[in-house]
């Protein structure tokens, strides 16, 4: 009996040892915000007034390259088209919409910049556009970005395009504020500005719509990497959308969509998978 009790005691000892062994400090699980990966439905921010990229039709439907890419990526994340809610965003509201969670992702001609990366995370880029300049048909003095010196340039709030001209390249253009590129185009036609300078894809969409009234000078001077805006810290989502973008280029969807939306614009379209920004 004594021996048996000794066994019991040694059992208790072993148990204590084991409990001690497991209760060693176990590091906390992966930090960061909850991921949008695995969500059943998604709210996606797109532009509402950029023909070819993100445009809201009178019936409320959204159409454009960004919208199609968003659908493709959402499908790869397991979300069917009828579980996507498209939410209109502007250049000014993109960061806040992601930060306050009113949208899960942003596909809105959203150039990846180091400055923006301090506030949001970027998957992709899913395309690399180039900044160019659009003028009225009759304009003969503007041939490249340096000719904007002394001219009236449309400056959209929240957009970086005008900063590229007046800050980064230090070209002394006169800035005329606007809230969107569709407003800029109206102002261009009304002679309230002399030029609109932004990504060639955006300009091509408007040029397509306005026809012979406007002209793109065709002197691109930057690489604008269109990223997929995600809440900062959601590394899993960033990795998942990068895999989706890779698949989109490999299976030919990217080339098909580029030709569908910009095939007639005369732009040189690049159908190779872009160099990703990287997650986290």
């Amino acid at each position, binding site marked *: 009996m004594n021996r048996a009790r000794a066994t019991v005691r040694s059992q208790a000892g*072993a*148990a204590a040892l084991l409990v001690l062994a*497991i209760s060693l400090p176990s590091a906390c699980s992966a930090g960061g915000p909850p991921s949008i990966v695995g969500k059943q439905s998604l709210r996606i921010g797109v532009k509402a007034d950029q023909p070819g990229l993100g445009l809201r039709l009178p019936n409320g439907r959204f159409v454009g390259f960004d919208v199609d890419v968003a659908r493709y990526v959402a499908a790869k994340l397991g979300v069917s088209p009828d579980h996507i809610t498209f939410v209109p965003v502007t250049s000014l509201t993109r960061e806040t919409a992601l930060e306050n969670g009113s949208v899960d992702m942003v596909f809105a001609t959203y150039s990846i910049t180091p400055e923006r990366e301090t506030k949001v995370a970027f998957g992709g880029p899913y395309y690399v556009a180039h900044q160019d300049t659009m003028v009225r048909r009759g304009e003969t003095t503007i041939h490249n970005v340096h000719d904007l010196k002394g001219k009236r340039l449309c400056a959209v709030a929240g957009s970086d395009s005008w900063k590229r001209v007046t800050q980064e390249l230090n070209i002394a253009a006169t800035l005329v504020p606007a809230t969107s590129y569709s407003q800029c185009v109206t102002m261009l036609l009304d002679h309230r500005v002399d030029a609109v300078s932004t990504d060639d894809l955006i300009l091509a969409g408007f040029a397509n719509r306005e026809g012979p009234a406007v002209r793109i000078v065709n002197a691109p001077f*930057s690489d604008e990497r269109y990223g997929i805006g995600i809440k900062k810290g959601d*590394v899993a989502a960033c990795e998942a959308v990068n895999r989706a973008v890779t698949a989109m280029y490999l299976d030919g969807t990217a080339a098909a969509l580029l030709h569908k939306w910009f095939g007639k614009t005369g732009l040189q379209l690049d159908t*190779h998978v872009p160099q990703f920004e990287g997650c986290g």
Partner: protein
Amino acid sequence: MLATATPPAPHQRPRKWWPTAPIRRLGLQTTPGRIRALAAIAVLAIAGFYIVTNIAIGNARDGLRVIGHDAGPQVLATGDLYFALSDMDSQVANILLTGREHNPATRQQALNSYNQDRATADRAAMQAAELSANNPIDQATVRSVLDGLGRYELLAGRAMVLNEQANHPAGPPPGNVIAVYRQATNLMKLELLPPAYNLTLEGGATVRDAYVAKRAAVLSSRLWVALAGLAAIAVLAGLQFFVAVRFRRLVNPALALATLGLIALSPAAVRLLSGEAAQLQAAKTGGFDSILTMSRARAISNSLHADESRFLLDPGQADAYRLAYLDKSQTVLYVKSGNLSQYYTGLSAAMKAYPRTVSFLGFYGDEARAHPGPAVAAVLSRFQQFQADDQRIRRLASAGDTRQATMLLTGRTAGSSGYDFDQYDKAVRSLIGLHRGTFDHAIGTGDRELGRSILGNWAALLPLAALGAVILVVVGVRPRLKEYR
């Protein structure tokens, strides 16, 4: 206690709450039946402990394999591939820029670097292809990079021949040379570098996924291993107790030995798993994360250095190259700035405040916060020197002195930008080497611990120990059962 307990009335059999018929069918009302049942439960408990522990160790082994032997090395190989490709284009730009005014030694050095890069790219691509043997998409990507490299070499070769014929002074070559170089560098930028960089990132993502999943599995499996061990010990002790009481023996040596074996083995297995989780963490956060960050920083740095050359080489694209240079500089080390001259100022201010405060972001911001020390400080001061050179080069260029700007850029002797960039790159490489050491050590320790236990290899020990315990149970109860024959 026993003395004061009220003894039950002898003629009154207590009613049992469980149905007695099935128990009778199993023969549990007899002593040999009970011994047999307890022995069977003990064997099952030992098997359970073996299975749970084996799965847990399998998770640790999988984690080490992916991080230490598959995706981890893949990241290094594709990082080397990117760097070699990017540097080839950089060397071509330098050769085209210097024209006839080169110091023959400098030109030969550039050509040697070009050829070396070519060999490195081949080797790294082979290695990357080998490491992605089970991933057809990655393999196709590597193959397409190698195909593109052949086309790139043709274009670069043609540009260099045309350049030789042009026999121009230092500075931008004639238009026909620039036109061919543009084709080459666009091919590099659009078709070769992106897949190489994305492979590196994909390797990083694979490592992260494996780390999160496997480390969590290893940590939580410790509880199951401990519980399974405790259960087996308890059943063995119960059997021992039962046999001791029934047969008036103090101890059954075989059963005692089996129990002692499990008492030794269970905590050792739990300790092993804790150790493996710690090594996974050390390899990932102490080594791998920084290797990935610094490899990316090194790749982007090489590319921005080349943008400096291209800025001088191709005046038609100078704006684009200047903007790309600023973007890439900010990716590597971010200080708030609207243009390059603000960047130079912001960088100096940030470096003055360092190491008191890390006021900058980007790759080096992450690294300086995660692993402060002399190695990262060396990288930062070299980077600052390189940026100071850049400022001089651009000042010369905007004053129209492209020749001097080119000499400063392409020189390889002390005081030239080329020299300072080499020093900077060396500092980055030695920082990567430092983290590589941490990484290799953690993976090596993890591997060794798995392969080693007090009694030998865990892979061999665990099944042997489980089998031994089962045999001991059989050996322990068989003589007792014989007494009933």
